């Protein structure tokens, strides 16, 4: 049982070792000639302007968080949709994937409850003006 993890261990060792060897070799072998231009932060060849520490509006994070919620909603919806035939059948599907029993509302209602909770959240952020950019 423990041996079956050996490939994983070998992979980890190899990955760490490869990175360490590569970085180490560059440090040892690479020529080091520092100039003012070479010490500049890399900006795709153009000259850097201003400080890299720019203040972002907190609204970006807000939008990102709101997006995350609905992104996860889709992540839940997808496997649910692919299993919907099984969820809406009161007996396990037969080999051909045909429902031999009665239709069941179980899967639909479960997802509706989940969506209803998210809709409550949507109504909340909408009323709290979290969706307004201004």
């Amino acid at each position: 049982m423990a041996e079956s993890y050996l490939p994983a261990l070998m992979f980890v060792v190899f990955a760490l070792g490869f990175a360490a060897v590569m970085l180490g070799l560059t440090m040892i072998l690479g020529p080091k000639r520092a100039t003012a231009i070479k010490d500049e932060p890399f900006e795709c060849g153009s000259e850097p302007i201003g400080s890299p520490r720019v203040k972002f509006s907190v609204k970006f994070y807000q939008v990102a968080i709101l997006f995350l919620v609905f992104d996860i909603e889709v992540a839940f919806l997808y496997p649910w949709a692919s299993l919907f035939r099984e969820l809406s059948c009161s007996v396990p599907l037969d080999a051909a994937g045909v429902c031999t029993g009665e239709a069941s509302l179980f899967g639909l209602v479960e997802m509706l409850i989940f969506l209803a909770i998210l809709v409550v959240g949507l109504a909340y952020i909408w009323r709290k003006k979290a969706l307004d950019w201004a």
Partner: protein
Amino acid sequence: MTFALGPVPLLPEPAAAAGQATTASAQALVDMVHLAPMMIVGIWSLIVLVADAFARPGLRRFQQTLTLLGLGLAVLAAVGQFGHYEYDGGIEVFSGFLYVDQFALLVDLGILGVAGAVVLFAGDYNRSHRFEYGEHESLVLIATFGVMILAHAGDLVALFLGIETMSIAVYVMVGARWNSRQSPEAALKYFVMGAFSSGLLLMGIALVYGATGVTGLDQLSHEVSTVFTKWRAAQDYVAVVEAPEGFPAGMVDMAQDKVALGIAPAALLIPGVLLVLGALLFKVSAVPFHMWTPDAYEGAPSPTTAFMAAGVKIGAFAALLKLFVGTFIVGSLVQAPYGWTSVVLWLAAATMIVGNLAAVRQTNVKRLLAYSSVAHVGYLLVGVVAAASFYGDRPAKGYLPTADEHAWASNAGDTAVASILYYLLAYAVATLGAFACVSWLGRDKKEASAAHEWSGLAQRHPGIALGMTVCLLSLMGMPPMGGFFGKLFVFRSAFEHGSEALRIVVVIAVVNSVIGAVYYLRLIVSMYFRPPLERDLGHVEGRGAPVVLAAAAALSVLIGIGADAMMQRCRLASAGFRIPPSEARAERVDELRAQWEQREAEADRKAAQEEGQQPGQKAGQQPGQQPDEKAQVEVPAAAAPSAEGGTPPAEAEALDDGG
């Protein structure tokens, strides 16, 4: 015609399966009704959130009332369920994902009370300190919902969900005071540490799942013992693997397989269990995972601190009990050298020593109460270790337990769990009162939580000082307050039946209770015997905090005076705690009820004889029990004494001393 024989027996099967499956959706509805308190709180958190979004500004009072209404409904549901015969054996809902049993229902009642109290005084506090926000009530309800998931959890995944639901709501509440610098800092500290501990918990759950292949708690308790059986079996082959010379090749191969199969799961399980333990010890803030506690407690708004000190502790201890007293109780896992009790025992001692010694040096009342809560966790952990070692003691002694020993172990373990529940509730009540008082003092963005600001409080606000004194005395463990009986029950059950190491730690705990008196009494002395400050620091407008303080002080005394009745309820909640929901657990509860009936009938008879009347015909009313169901317990009444055997009925003694 003969070929028809084949399909015939198969025919009824689809029909039966269809019947089962159509009831599956109906079953989900029935399950929700069983979970009524939890469902009400969950739905109410959404209702309150929407009400906040759509209500006109200035309707905060309405929102508070709405929340209290929901909590009241949930309390009604829980009161109706707790103690009802239907839940004696525990019911599995959502295919064993959650349990509804007496333990969970009692914890539900506790946390609903905590939430109600916090909602009562948080509104005034937030308004007075100018950071009123409408989501507060909803967040309290969500955190309450999380604690209830923990209490009901029947699966490691449910446990994780509960902890996260609870914690995330509390992180937000801690950081909600935007006009203070400390509050976001406290929230960040709490969040970073809490998220890390959640990671540990998840890693531990993954390892435990890897070792056993199950996440359901009742299967786990079975699988864990299988892991150790295999591990023990593998020990015989270790010699063959280490010195294969002289053994046939086939035997060496087999020995290697046995050793690999036997040792690998144990090698996954032990670190997994320790990771889960570490994460839960973080949540209860036991040493050495307590560092965040004083900062988070001090920086958080006082009502939130009250919820953390009372509600989160209740939830985390419910989880700790479920996992480490109810599930991971196989002898080898509990006892030395690999067992967790040998570690937690000394952690408990360290927790109370560190908590108490640090509390003595505090000059801020909130920090003082934070360290005092750390110390209380230490006392509670003694109970946890005691309960686990009683339940899991037998196999470590190297022989199979006899029936008598089984009965003894379950009795001693159940009593220890009941003591922990009693202690938790007594502690939660007193802490809520203390923090209600802290939240009441000071106003306009300035809390009066420095200890010197409390001097002479009794001259300015005698009622508040009296209530605070009662709560502090209960925390200190002064009879006849609830805190004293909590300590008495926990220490007693650990001392009476515990091992030598456990007894030493109980002695340390008693010494620590005395050290604890130093800082509680110092605060009381400064309230009563020091001159008041020249400048009145003012207090929060509104009656919420004084009402909660008065109720907490009254309850502290009440559950102290009525320790017998209270302990009986805790005993009902803990009966058969180790056994997963089943008929067997219901039988244990029935035995217990029968014992009580008998004792009450005897007491009645004695009373009647003293009055020179006929022996009493009917047994006294049991708490939380419908009269028409009494007939059911008459049957096992005869069986009860035999099961009790020659073993000392520990809980009977504890109960008799209670009153």
